[in-house]
């Protein structure tokens, strides 16, 4: 199908309707947020409105998904992968705002704009998921990043928050420069910023070994590697996650990562399939380094947010395995993984929010000691999150299928990534060392004498936990429907990495959610 002509309103809304709705709505909400004196009530009201907007946009995106429209070429992709990614992103957005409403109240941050910032960041992410042009990628990344930089420091009373925000900002900008340089070089090599055009020119002109292109891909990989916190570009993540408010940390860990991976996958699969041989070793190496670094250092953590930060790094490594496989399954495996990871991460952070003590004091893993005896349901929820992050069947629900899918993608690749698969599972065993430590502390350690029970769980936070647990467990028992949805989300360009162009049309065309 031809690309949409964005100058025709009908086609514009078909291609960018949810994005425009979100951006427009967010702008209006920003006005409303700035209109009143900061207060908890106002913050809450804006938060609810933001959630409502998110739900509407989400519904719109899912409706679009079922329209089965697709178009090739052009700056904006209209395909199932995009809508699926949007759905995952918006789910994370919804969770973030819900948690923020409660967390802002608890931490006394009466900033209504915080929710709007989340919406803006999310609109950047949606752009990323849809970007079929490097310019749009850049725009999306910056829109997302700038909003999140501010988010990280939203608690102005927190020195830790400010430090985190600064580190994030400086390193983020630094990495963006590499990303941008990469884009410039790719542009220089191919003369275009459109992904489909890049791909066709690389093939047509035989640019797969062009130094400009190859260095450009490398620099792009570095830029994206920073955004997804792949080792060795991960160093910012633990500090920033540690310093930021917990909902934002979850947002960064799950949703930012989801968006970055969506864009990474699209760029790689649509623009550089012909250079597979060039980038595969680097991506694989990055995956290995990330898995090892994340899981090993995770073992040494006593602060739960930092632990989850390293866990998040490790998961980036697992996702990179799917990318390195470059198989038809990579895209859907990644989507499924991101969904499962989003659920588990937000669930875990929701519990951390409940456990927080305020006063800028970090939550330590040992604070969970004996949680089972005072808050059994909470402990159970956290246990399920941990097992899900570990990728354990049934009790970890969706987490296991996510890992399974990635493994399947790795092994189904035209060049089966057995080594990566083995490293994946071995580092998973290492990760059991810290995930289980949390479980152990909650269920097997006594509650320390004189420790205060955590306060009541606010309604929205509880809703997030309950929803995550139920979704994780359900996905862990009957994942087939979502697997099929994720399958349908495979982009049209992906199979070219399999060097099977004939399958391209059929996969994208016949797939139905």
């Amino acid at each position: 199908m031809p690309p949409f002509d964005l100058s025709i309103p009908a086609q514009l809304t078909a291609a960018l309707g949810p994005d425009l709705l979100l951006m427009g709505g967010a702008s209006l909400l920003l006005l409303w947020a700035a209109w009143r004196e900061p207060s908890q009530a106002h913050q809450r009201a804006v938060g609810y409105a933001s959630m409502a907007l998110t739900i509407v946009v989400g519904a719109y995106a899912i409706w679009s998904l079922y329209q089965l429209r697709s178009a090739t070429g052009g700056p904006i992709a209209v395909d199932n992968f995009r809508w699926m990614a949007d759905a995952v992103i918006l789910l994370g957005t919804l969770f973030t705002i819900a948690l923020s409403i409660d967390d802002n109240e608890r931490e006394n941050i009466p900033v209504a704009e915080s929710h709007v910032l989340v919406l803006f960041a999310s609109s950047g992410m949606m752009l990323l998921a849809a970007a079929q042009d490097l310019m749009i990628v850049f725009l999306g990344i910056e829109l997302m990043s700038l909003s999140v930089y501010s988010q990280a420091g939203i608690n102005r009373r927190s020195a830790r928050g400010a430090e985190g925000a600064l580190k994030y900002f400086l390193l983020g900008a630094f990495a963006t420069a590499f990303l941008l340089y990469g884009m410039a070089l790719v542009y220089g090599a191919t003369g275009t910023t459109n992904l489909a055009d890049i791909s066709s020119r690389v093939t047509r002109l035989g640019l797969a070994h062009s130094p400009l292109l190859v260095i450009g891909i490398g620099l792009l990989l570095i830029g994206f590697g920073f955004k997804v916190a792949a080792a060795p570009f991960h160093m910012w993540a633990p500090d920033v996650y540690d310093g930021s408010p917990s909902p934002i940390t979850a947002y960064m860990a799950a949703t930012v990562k989801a968006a970055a991976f969506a864009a990474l996958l699209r760029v790689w699969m649509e623009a550089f399939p012909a250079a597979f041989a060039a980038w595969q070793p680097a991506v694989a190496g990055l995956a290995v380094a990330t898995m090892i670094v994340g899981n090993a250092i995770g073992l040494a953590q006593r602060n739960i947010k930092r632990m989850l930060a390293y866990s998040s790094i490790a998961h980036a490594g697992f996702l990179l395995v799917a990318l390195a496989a470059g198989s038809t399954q990579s895209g859907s495996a990644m989507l499924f993984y991101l969904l499962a990871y989003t659920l588990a991460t937000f669930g875990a952070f929701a519990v951390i929010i409940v456990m927080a003590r305020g006063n800028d004091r970090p939550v330590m893993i040992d604070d969970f000691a004996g949680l089972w005896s005072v808050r059994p349901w909470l402990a159970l929820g956290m246990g399920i999150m941990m097992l899900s992050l570990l990728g354990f069947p049934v009790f970890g629900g969706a987490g296991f299928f996510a890992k399974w899918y990635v493994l399947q993608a790795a092994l189904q690749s035209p060049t089966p990534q057995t080594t990566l698969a083995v490293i994946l599972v071995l580092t998973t065993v290492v990760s059991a060392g810290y995930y289980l430590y949390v479980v152990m502390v909650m269920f097997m350690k006594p509650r320390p004498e004189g420790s205060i029970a955590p306060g009541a769980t606010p309604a929205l936070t509880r809703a997030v936990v309950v929803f995550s647990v139920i979704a994780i467990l359900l996905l862990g028992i009957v994942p087939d429907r979502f697997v099929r949805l994720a399958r349908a989300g495979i982009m049209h360009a992906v199979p070219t990495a399999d060097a099977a162009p004939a399958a391209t049309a059929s996969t994208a065309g016949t797939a139905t959610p």
Partner: protein
Amino acid sequence: MIDFLTSIGYMHWVLPVLLLIPTLGAMAIWLQGAPGRGAPGADDVASGAASVPRLMAFVTFLVEFIVSIGLWWTYDTTNPGWQGVFDVPWIPSWGIHFRLGIDGISLMMILLTTSTMVLAVLGGWTSIRKRAHTYYALLLILTAGMLGVFMSLDLFLFYVMWEVMLVPMYFIIGAWGGERRVYASMKFFIYTMLGSMLMLVAIVYLGLAAKSPITGIPNFNYDAVLEHASITTAASFWLFGAFFLAFAVKVPMFPFHTWLPDAHVEAPTAGSVVLASIMLKLGTFGFLRLAVPLFPAVATNDTVRGIILTLAVIGIVYGALVSLVQPDFKKLVAYSSVSHLGFVMLGIFALTVQSVQGALMVMINHGISTGALFFLIGMIYERRHTRLIEDYGGIARVVPMFAAALTLVTFSSIGVPGTNGFVGEFLVLLGAFRTYPVFAFIAATVVIFAAAYLLWAIQRILFNALDKPVNLHIPDLNRRELALLVPLLAGIVWLGVYPKPVLSRMETSAEHFVQSVQTRALHTVAEGNN
């Protein structure tokens, strides 16, 4: 009996129902009381809070056992194929089915499981004093997982069930265990996971190797993988290695055994019993069901076989020798398990009908005898709160019933003829001697060491002078404990004297196993040569 069972379509629904009963039971128990009721850390037995869940658990297990026992009659011993097959698509996009079925081997394992679990509840009747609801719920989930492994005819399902068992056992050890329970449970979990994770990769690989050429969807159906998976010789070695590691840890084979003593020692009685009686069998069952049949050429490769048999025999002798010097009775029994399970491995890899049947018998016998030993240790521990052998001495005078039971079980574990222990070990050694006389010869020396370590232990517990005043007033077995031991003791004698009903139910499957592995190994080798 058969007519009645056939008339209600028993074989069509029994397998899923066997999984459903404990799952529902667990939910019911948990919802009934946990986590809302009762102060945490309170003594549920004394307060009576434990009586409802344990009764529910007992009834559930009893129902489960009664439902399962029908298999004894309805199982068709002449049919070497799967029976009671239940097959529904689970995740069709990945070619995964919820496919259950049994053969003679899994039949016996299922019956062993369901019967042991009834006793396991009784065994912890008064010793599980905290958070009783959760404990019994976990025990039920554990049962579902174990049964699932025995029934699975889909590799994916097998893996899922394999892991499902892990979590309840982790909690049972970690939350209801002894002093070093945290270390033990963590070690147990990570050790086992290390083994099983590589198996996961291997399973994915196999499923993809058997994928449909038309749709490209992988196929995890056991039979499909067995028949259609196209694997290169080199790959099959690696894949076998992955399965080997998973199962060897579980068995446990030397040198992958060190989680076992810790887990056994720290676990509560029912945990130890389940570990010893059933969970260890899952490892050897894995060899019988997956590792060997899927890669017959590797399993019969001289080098591989030599290594495995060497490890098995080392385990046999080593386990016995290390048992000899254990100060802790539970640890002693744990190491003796290493020794006994070595016999199973020897039997499986010697690959004669006698040795395989013997291995199966050892699996059952070890379940009964070692289970009984752990029950007995649990009983005496409940009275004296020590497992150290030297803390006892001469107590046969104050607890004669206990002493009589322990002595009989000990004889069974030693393998005295007339008890079940002899039948298994004799058959394994006899069969193994035909193909691997040297290994069998070395393994047979254990008849000496086994007598040495166990008799020395029970002498220091039951006999000698009753010289510690604290032991003067140990109460003897109560009626519940006696009721729980009697079936085990009866089983010991029954299987020792008349094992034929059991042997005949496993015979077709064991013969099928040996023959198919041998012919398929030859076939594969021939293909490789072409």
